[in-house]
């Protein structure tokens, strides 16, 4: 009990300190710094995305996003590598079905969540959000499916194929930018189009859809791998 109250006190002190910093020291900046100023004033004429963050993430710092996707891919493959071994030796016993409430709710929530995820990454250049958020929402939908129907198994091969193809297309679009426009991951080889319409901002919607599919299939793959793992028998 003494230890618990000490922990609670520590958390409280940390929270008060942090909160004090957020409220007291936060000042609304008067003007942007030089990089932000450049992005803000030139983005609309150069890239044409309604969401400046997306233009920065996908185009100006596209290489960084490629690195992030690679890190996630590595994590997914390592998890797949370590969890795969136990599958064959364990007997397939009947898992108990999920509760009635979960099964019924998942029938409503899973298609809706997948559509929401697709909406988020397709509209990444117009609204806050994008490939990573949309992919995480799709992954959550698959997780809900696995939670509600433990016996239900989806072929993991489909996810591996989607992941490989979308990663390949992402790099191919980057190379197309190198050949047809200013450099690697330059999205200006497609027309900018009308701002705020779905088909605008060059290749940004394409790249974000590929990132969304890749992240979604990677997270789903990790979850299905975890769900299929049988306990150690010894």
């Amino acid at each position, binding site marked *: 009990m003494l230890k618990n109250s000490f922990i*609670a006190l520590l*958390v409280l002190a940390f*929270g008060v300190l942090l909160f004090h910093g*957020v409220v007291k020291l*936060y000042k609304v900046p008067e003007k942007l710094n030089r990089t932000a100023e450049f992005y803000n004033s030139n983005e609309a004429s150069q890239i044409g995305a309604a969401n400046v963050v997306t233009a920065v993430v996908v185009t100006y710092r596209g290489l960084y996003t490629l690195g992030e996707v690679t890190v996630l891919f590595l994590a997914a493959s390592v998890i797949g590598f370590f969890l795969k071994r136990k599958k064959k030796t364990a007997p397939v016993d009947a898992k108990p079905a999920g509760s009635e409430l979960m099964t019924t709710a998942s029938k409503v929530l899973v298609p809706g969540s997948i559509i929401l995820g697709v909406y988020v990454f397709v509209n990444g250049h117009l609204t806050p959000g*994008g490939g990573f*958020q949309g992919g995480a929402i799709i992954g959550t939908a698959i997780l809900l499916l696995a*939670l509600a129907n433990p016996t239900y198994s989806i072929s993991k091969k489909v996810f591996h194929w989607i992941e490989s193809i979308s990663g390949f297309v992402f790099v191919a679009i980057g190379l197309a930018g190198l050949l047809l426009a200013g450099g690697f991951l330059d999205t200006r080889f497609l027309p900018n189009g009308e701002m705020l319409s779905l088909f605008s901002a060059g290749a940004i919607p394409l790249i974000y859809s590929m990132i969304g599919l890749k992240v979604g299939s990677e*997270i789903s793959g990790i*979850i299905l791998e975890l769900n299929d793992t049988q306990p150690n028998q010894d």
Partner: protein
Amino acid sequence: MELFSIILLLVMGVATIGSAILALTTKKTDVAILAAGAISLFASIFFLVLASPDVAMTEAAIGAGLSTFLFFVILRKTEQNAEK
């Protein structure tokens, strides 16, 4: 900063710290998981008020949604193992 934002941040801060204390001190694992998810939810409102809606969406999708669900799946799997 407007008064409304400051009041909202104050309430959110108190709620975040409350959830953190609950997550640490509770004896039930599922209550702790839910409290940890609530921290992420409050943090995403923080990000929204501090004018970064994309980070708020990431926090809500990954912190509050995905990881909370993942904890529940793992909790159920470990409980199944314990029954055997």
